[in-house]
């Protein structure tokens, strides 16, 4: 019986755990419940993915109202993959969160923290799973509102202004998405994505459809922080609590990319988005600028958390570049980088959280000599850095390999060169940290720094380990990404 209800349980289990967390006044109990819910969500997303891979798309009609009228949850290879990314990162970060949150957030707010965390998880999973355009907006707002709360819980008072900034930008983005959905509803009379995909092509270049497309593109780009709409992201990531930064960096922007993919390829269809409106002429230049500019800005940051935030913007550039090339290889590169970047950047931010727990700062100068005092944490950081650069045997290499291949397929030597230039810039900003941590002695007279506790080290190493393992054995990630890319370009939902 459970197998048939998996799509809805995927959402409802974290959703029902959230109010229960609110009822549990003790932070430790709330944490335990959140942990159980997130592991259950991971188990369900693994089952869903295997179901989709063996039997094809899974559909679930909420309340037994049939598809074009009722809300449908529809899982195919692309969103099963996104569900796996989100729930895996959630399940890894919650064990980590207990020590980190106890250190950074006052005790009386712990149960509220886990409530917001679960709501954010629910929202992100919901965006990925739903087959209804308006339902997507509702889940998007659930995840956004709870992530504003999570960011505002940061200790620095600037977390408040960062959260407010994100709230304003995020709300504008989400409102743009609603306008787009509303315009689509006006011309088609349906909100179901599969139904929309069938009804839109006959309309051709209807002006309402084109305007809806523009609104949806801008709205989703705001949410995924595509250059030049990225203004909110560095502050939000820098001042949020460590566990929150790790979670949001690994999932929130990935889900926004999924929205973009869903609208471009499933709903409007590649013919409309790429051939008629030539979207690639917009996406590819913006992606390249994001890669070069944000990597360069990252080099000049002294706050390492902010440096990684800028690096995230550059990595989003790689993902969008892959999407913009709109070839099977390019799209595969973009989708596989969703996973790869989630693992790498999640692991890096968790390593930074370990450093923050022991050292109390994530500024470059306070990391002197950490290679000796916190060897495991720093080694994880270095491996993650290597993956950002794209060294072979890491997942970063896999993504870049496919990106370069896709560029060469289109005879675009320039794009291939630019991707490699981005890697060179990554070497510089990763090296700055390595140099300070390994080649400089610990500052004289500083308090002795111990290695981070195991409950935080293990989750960090799980993500970093994944970014090595999937760099060697790519059959799962590239296999699924390739399948998803072919499906998206085939136009079939």
């Amino acid at each position: 019986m459970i197998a048939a209800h998996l799509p809805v349980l995927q959402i409802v289990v974290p959703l029902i755990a959230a109010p229960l967390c609110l009822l549990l006044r003790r932070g430790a109990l709330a944490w335990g419940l959140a942990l159980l819910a997130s592991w259950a969500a991971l188990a369900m997303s693994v089952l869903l993915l295997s179901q989709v891979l063996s039997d094809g798309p899974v559909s679930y009609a909420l309340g037994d109202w049939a598809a074009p009228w009722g809300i449908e949850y529809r899982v195919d290879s692309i969103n099963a993959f996104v569900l796996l990314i989100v729930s895996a990162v959630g399940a890894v970060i919650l064990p980590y969160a207990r020590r980190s949150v106890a250190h950074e957030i006052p005790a009386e707010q712990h149960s509220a923290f886990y409530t917001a965390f679960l709501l954010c998880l629910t929202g992100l999973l919901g965006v990925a799973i739903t087959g209804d355009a308006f339902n997507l907006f509702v889940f998007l707002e659930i995840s956004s509102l709870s992530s504003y709360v999570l960011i505002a819980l940061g200790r620095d008072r600037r977390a408040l202004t960062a959260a407010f900034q994100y709230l304003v930008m995020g709300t504008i983005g989400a409102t743009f998405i609603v306008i787009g959905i509303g315009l689509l509803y006006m011309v088609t009379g349906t909100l179901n994505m599969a139904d929309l995909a069938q009804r839109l092509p006959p309309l051709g270049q209807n002006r309402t459809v084109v305007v809806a497309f523009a609104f949806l593109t801008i709205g989703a780009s705001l949410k995924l922080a595509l250059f030049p709409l990225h203004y909110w992201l560095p502050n939000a990531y820098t001042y949020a609590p460590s566990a929150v930064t790790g979670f949001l960096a690994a999932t929130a922007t990935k889900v926004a990319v999924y929205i973009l993919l869903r609208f471009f390829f499933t709903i409007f269809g590649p013919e409309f988005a790429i051939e008629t409106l030539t979207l690639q002429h917009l996406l590819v230049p913006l992606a390249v600028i994001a890669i070069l500019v944000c990597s360069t800005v990252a080099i000049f940051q002294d706050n390492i958390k902010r440096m990684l935030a800028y690096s995230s913007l550059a990595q989003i550039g790689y993902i969008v570049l892959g999407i913009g090339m709109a070839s099977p290889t390019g799209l595969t590169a973009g989708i596989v980088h969703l996973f790869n970047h989630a693992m790498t950047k999640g692991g890096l931010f968790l390593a930074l959280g370990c450093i923050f727990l022991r050292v109390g700062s994530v500024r470059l100068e306070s990391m002197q000599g950490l290679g000796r005092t916190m060897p495991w944490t720093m080694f994880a950081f270095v491996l993650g850095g290597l993956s950002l650069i794209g060294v072979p045997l890491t997942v970063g290499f896999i993504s870049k390999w496919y990106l370069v291949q896709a560029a060469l397929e289109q005879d675009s030597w320039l794009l291939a060169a630019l991707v490699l230039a981005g890697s060179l810039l990554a070497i510089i900003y990763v090296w700055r940290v390595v140099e300070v941590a390994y080649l400089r002695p610990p500052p004289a007279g500083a308090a002795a720094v111990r290695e981070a506790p195991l409950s935080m080290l293990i989750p960090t190493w799980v993500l970093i380990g994944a970014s090595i393992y999937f760099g060697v054995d790519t059959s799962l990630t590239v296999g699924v990404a390739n399948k998803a890319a072919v499906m998206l370009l085939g136009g079939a939902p």
Partner: protein
Amino acid sequence: MQRHLVLRVTTKLLMPFILLFALYVQFHGDFGPGGGFQAGVIFGAGFILYALVYGIKNARLVAPDYVIRVLIAAGLLLYIGVGFAGLFLGGKFLDYNVLASDPVSGQHLGILLVELGVGVTVAATMITVFFAFAARGRDEG
């Protein structure tokens, strides 16, 4: 507000009608315009009016923070619980048809319970939002 006799008396007179109207909007939602959101807001507005006139301290005696907190969660749990009930009775999640012996009364029961959950959560949330703003930076006035 100690000396505004008219306001104090009028508020007292209006309170039962406001709350009754909220319940009417809540339970008449099956047959006419209404439902949980609207009813919850009206119910919450009744409490807010009381707090404005008689002070937050007195309002908190009626609606203490922990009760409100439990109610926020309880409304949501009732909603999800109805969903699960449909699931356990052999239908889909939030399937009202299987809740009673025949689909029509099942739909009635389902929407009634779900809207009740919505109403409870919305009312409790409105009260919380008001208390959080009004009591902040004050001596729990």
